[in-house]
């Protein structure tokens, strides 16, 4: 049976859902995807720093305190603090110009929450792609594995490599939309990496660590080598490449 595909314009990007219904009736699948999309819009309204009236924007301006904002915000900020520690400070939402900015983690976290909506509804196999950050549920029924290409940093029409995805993958780079990575230690645009990919069990963490890997390069790759469950793949600014030993490259 063909998978159901849905794309949603949300969070300043496109989130696409590929759901293999298997034994689940299609109306139930569509309802679950609809619920997941509603959640994404709600989280966008909550966390967007480009929406001046979002609770996150109001928190940044000091109009609201942590006790006044929706509970997702302190939860995400806690995850941000954990990721800052894991990355030895290379991911640091508190070092961003303009006040605390969880953007480097919140997209991955939101996409992961959307996948949880599908899982709780009974979906066994699905892929949710949030603008290039992906989380998988189960396995696709026919091929048995999610093969994910990693976009080549300088050639939009090529892949740098292909990996077999177990759960979550995030890639950070300065291509397509211009430089958006900031070195938390200098506040300047980061130039360490052309492309930084992290895989692991949590997309929120992978997203944050990909941001850290892009800013911190080899130092963060070494950290990832010691972090259980996570792997990293770095394409440096000079086009050389390096990956942790257990990165699941496909043939």
């Amino acid at each position, binding site marked *: 049976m*063909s*998978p159901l*595909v849905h*794309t949603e*314009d949300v969070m*300043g*990007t*496109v989130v*696409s859902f*590929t759901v293999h219904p298997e034994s689940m009736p299609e109306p139930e699948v569509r309802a679950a995807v609809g619920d997941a999309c509603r959640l994404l819009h709600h989280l966008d309204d909550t966390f967007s720093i480009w929406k001046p009236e979002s609770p996150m924007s109001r928190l940044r301006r000091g109009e609201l305190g942590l006790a006044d904002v929706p509970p997702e915000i302190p939860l995400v900020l806690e995850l941000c603090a954990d990721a800052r520690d894991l990355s030895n400070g290379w991911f640091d939402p508190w070092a961003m110009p303009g006040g605390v900015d969880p953007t480097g983690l919140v997209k991955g976290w939101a996409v992961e929450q959307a996948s949880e909506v599908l899982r709780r509804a009974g979906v066994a196999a699905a*892929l949710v*792609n949030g*603008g*290039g*950050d*992906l989380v998988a549920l189960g396995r*696709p029924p*026919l*091929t048995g594995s*999610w*093969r*994910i*290409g*990693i*976009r*080549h*940093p300088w*050639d*939009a*029409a*090529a*892949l*740098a*490599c*292909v*990996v077999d*995805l177990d759960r979550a*993958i*995030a*890639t950070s*780079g300065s*291509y*397509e*939309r211009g430089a958006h990575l900031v070195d938390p230690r200098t506040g300047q645009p980061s130039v360490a990496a052309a*492309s930084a*990919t992290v895989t692991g069990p949590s997309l929120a963490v992978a997203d944050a660590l990909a941001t850290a890997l892009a800013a911190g390069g080899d130092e963060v790759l070494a950290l990832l080598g010691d972090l259980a469950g996570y792997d990293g793949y770095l394409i440096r600014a000079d086009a*050389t*490449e*390096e*990956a942790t030993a257990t990165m699941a*490259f*496909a043939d």
Partner: protein
Amino acid sequence: MKKYPVVIGATVAGLAGVLSFHTSNASNALSNTLPVKAKGGSQAASAASAPPTTSGATPGGSTATTSPPANASATGTSEQYGYGVLSVKVTVVNSKITDVKLSKLQTADTYSTVLAQQVVPYLRRQVLAAQSAHISGISGATYTSEAYALSVQSALDHLHFK
């Protein structure tokens, strides 16, 4: 660090996301065409230039039968992709995809137009070369290729192309 020779058109990936759903042909098509080099394109080019056979043409893609028409074309849905809207027209001859044309491209800014113009020819070549593909998604921003793939898929659905 091992360098990976897989340089499949990125296009593929997004595209593949869509096309991989038609798995019945996939193994044959892929065994003939992989490894696909993004810029080598010789296989893709030969696929692209294969002369369409006109015998046995059946009209239109609107038939309600489940078997695919031998020769037909259909325009896919207009896909929003964040930086614009695109749709494609897919032509099938003898149950083989022989052409994919961009039938609509509207972008919000010049940069997005330039990006789309770079990416679309590769996407087209990849569809023609692979007929199907086997990548589920791409990590890293690929909105253009996802939209392209989705539009191609909807056109193929119109044609009952398996």
